[in-house]
């Protein structure tokens, strides 16, 4: 009885819309921009997309749980600065550059440390939001300020160059000519795609995001689920920080400033709703590809950098408009009064209240 009526059609389009857009984008840019589809450029797109991509997974999970993690970009910068600080030799800070603490820790120790740091930050976020009943927006916004402030304080606001090669492998290394960061990102998407669609944790995240009260009454523990989501988000932000620092080989003050909006945008463009409870990891992946391709094209087309932000902002707004319309349409057609075919007696009790 599954006919392709108007509702199913809209449902289908809203679910797979991003892929249509993606194909169209490839065609348009491929045909109009010289060298766009060259291997070197595609690699370039993927490399720049991988840090964004890793962060989008964490943010997508938060959005699916009907939350938001504004602190993730703060985690990126704190983690990068901390890593450089622990690994680099001591030197006098001058106007341009700073040295490390001087203990010159091995990258193999530093890497787990920073991943743990990110996870703990996520736990603190989640704990304050779910156990202390604080607003997620303000909590993560304030946390971002704290993290960024710490990063600036540790680095004295200066560049810390010269991170060791072993550390840089994730961000800058290649295996068989393919960037490690791209392989890692695709791997993470595969893992989280599976987790969200096939594992209990994913089921819980969607349930809690769609309706926290009903999730509790269905036997779930929303606080535990959301805290875990923030821990994953913190962990992935730390991983993104590691990747970014490895690519740049130097910790730069204000690393990742303003990336949050891009991250949220990529997730929303990929069909993850700001209203929680739906969207897929694979969709978010498509969203990342789309944004990375557009950013690359803006570069290649020599668009005046002063205009780039306006164009990006516009794309994000369009994605948000589509997201809002999607749920508005559902609000109208969704829990509509059923068409009952039971010949209800006219004097039956009304279902009001």
């Amino acid at each position, binding site marked *: *009885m*599954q006919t392709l009526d108007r*509702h199913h059609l809209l449902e289908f389009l809203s679910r797979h819309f991003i892929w249509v857009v993606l194909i169209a984008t490839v065609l348009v840019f491929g045909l109009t921009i010289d060298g766009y589809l060259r291997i070197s450029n595609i690699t370039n797109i993927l490399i720049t997309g991988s840090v964004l991509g890793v962060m989008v997974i964490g943010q997508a999970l938060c959005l699916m749980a009907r939350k938001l993690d504004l602190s993730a970009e703060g985690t990126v910068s704190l983690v990068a600065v901390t890593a450089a600080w622990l690994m680099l030799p001591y030197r006098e800070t001058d106007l341009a550059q700073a040295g490390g603490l001087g203990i010159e820790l091995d990258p193999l120790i530093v890497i787990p440390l920073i991943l743990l740091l990110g996870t703990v930050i996520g736990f603190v976020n989640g704990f304050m939001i779910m156990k202390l009943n604080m607003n997620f927006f303000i909590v993560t916004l304030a946390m971002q300020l704290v993290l960024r402030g710490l990063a600036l304080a540790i680095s004295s606001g200066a560049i810390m160059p010269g991170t060791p090669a072993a550390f840089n492998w994730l961000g800058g290394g290649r295996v068989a000519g393919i960037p490690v960061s791209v392989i890692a990102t695709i791997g993470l998407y595969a893992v989280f795609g599976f987790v969200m669609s*096939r*594992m*209990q*944790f994913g*089921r*819980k995240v*969607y*349930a809690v995001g*769609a*309706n926290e*009260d*009903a*999730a*509790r*009454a*269905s*036997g*779930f*523990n929303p606080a535990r689920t959301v805290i875990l989501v923030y821990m994953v988000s913190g962990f992935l932000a730390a991983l993104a920080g590691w990747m970014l620092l490895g690519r740049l080989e130097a910790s730069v003050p204000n690393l990742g400033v303003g990336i949050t909006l891009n991250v949220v945008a990529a997730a929303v463009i990929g069909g993850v709703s700001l209203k929680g*409870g*739906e969207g897929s990891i694979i969709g978010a992946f498509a969203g990342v590809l789309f944004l990375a391709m557009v950013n690359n094209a803006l570069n290649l087309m020599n668009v005046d950098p002063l205009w780039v932000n306006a164009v990006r902002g516009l794309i994000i707004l369009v994605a948000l408009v589509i997201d809002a319309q999607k749920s508005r349409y*559902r609000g109208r057609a*969704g*829990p509509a*009064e*059923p*068409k*009952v075919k*039971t010949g*209800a*007696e*006219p*004097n*039956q*009790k*009304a*279902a*009001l*209240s």
Partner: protein
Amino acid sequence: MGRKDDILLDMRGISKSYPGVQALADADFSVRRGEIHGVVGKNGAGKSTLMGVLMGIRQADSGSIAIDGTALRHASPQTMLDAGISYVPQHINLLNTLTVAENILVGNLPKNRFGLVDWKAVNDDSQERLKRLGLKLDVRLPVEGLSVAERTMLAIAKALFNNARLIILDEPTAALARGDIDLLFSFVRAQQEQGVAFIYISHHLEEVFEICDRVTVMRDGHIVGTREISEIDVPELIHMMVGGGVQEYERETTAGAETVLEAKNLSRRGAYEQINFKLRRGEVVGLSGLQGSGVDELAQALFGLERLGVGEVLLDGGTFDPDSPRDAFDGGLAYLPQDRHRFGLIQLRPVRENVTYSVLDRLVSRLGVLMRKPEQQITEAYIEKLGIVTPGAEQRTMLLSGGNQQKVVFAKLAATQPKVLILHEPTQGVDVQAKVDIFNIIDDLAAQGVALLVISSEVRELIGLCDRILVMYEGRVTDEFTRAADNMKPEDILLAIEGGSRSAAANGSAALTENNKPSPGIRKGVS
């Protein structure tokens, strides 16, 4: 008092249907100038639909509305306000942080010659206006500092300043103590003497007798009748409310001998006191009470959504004190919430996920991966068994009809294989066919040995369904009716729910005497 032929509002032949239900059928309703007109009936009897039509927020399918003899062509909220009809809800909407004076003059504050608000004029003007209505309030006080009764009176006053001639009071005394009720009633009567008419909606029948001139009874979308208050008594009014026919559904008892759930001296401050009851295997027990009687709190506490308080609950002989719904499921108790949209279902997600949420632990492999096959099987089995009408297991739950949504909730609970199942208004908002289906599901579960506690305000449904019916009032179990004793009379049960006693009803005299008047502390109304 309104003269008998001085009709202010005349509604004729009002009908309104929603898919599957006739909310209003050919309803005639009129209000005289300067009368207080009570409207009573159970939840879902059609009161809110009728008032919605009168306020212009719902459009009737057919019928006519005339005010002062002039037929209204188009009923919108604005035309109704212009015609002098005002609504004072149970939960008063005022600007709480602003003063009384600002609330009265909001949007129209007097200015001085510098264009600034003239606060002296604001206060003097509003004080003067209130004085004319005989209302003594400090106009400089913020509204949030007022009592509920004072807020209600202020809301009525605001309506009068906007030239209201007919004011709908919806459960105005629900959160009031007796002294405040007296205060409110004398204010309402004073306005009545100035020619203002009121429609008074209440579940508290004694108040209807106290303040109303006439009363209209609604049932199942019909107007059962309108009577002069002097020509009717409580038992007759209750009889009109519950109707005279026999209930359509009656099940054979499946109650066993062994006790499954037992509450001993269960008390929680401000919710319920000294609750004792037993549920036997396969037994269906009804539980009914007004809002604030402790019924809701008791059910939610048993499911681990709230604290149980002091006392003891035994389930299958062992102590049962759940901290969370998960605990309750694991202990063998499941709960069907009244608010299906908020607590029952995750509407965005498909039927399959909703059915298996409660048993996910059993559907995962050692590595936490969900096993698709058993999940699919469970879902298909329940879709078939409960007759859930859906295009498939992957349909978003919100696209199902109310009755089918309710069946999905049943499936989720039944999947946990509970020993005790608490159902909170299980037939609310479902169509007739689904209602019968739900009765059959209840019957099946009871036959399998599940003990069921059915919380409902549908007394007639309870009588058909239950072996026993418990009534709660003011936090206590005040009455018990059993099929065995053959004393499950709808009139008696309804009276007990309202706080009256059976013997008084049997005498047919003024049933609600002074000493069982509700005490102010715990009392709330049915919403």
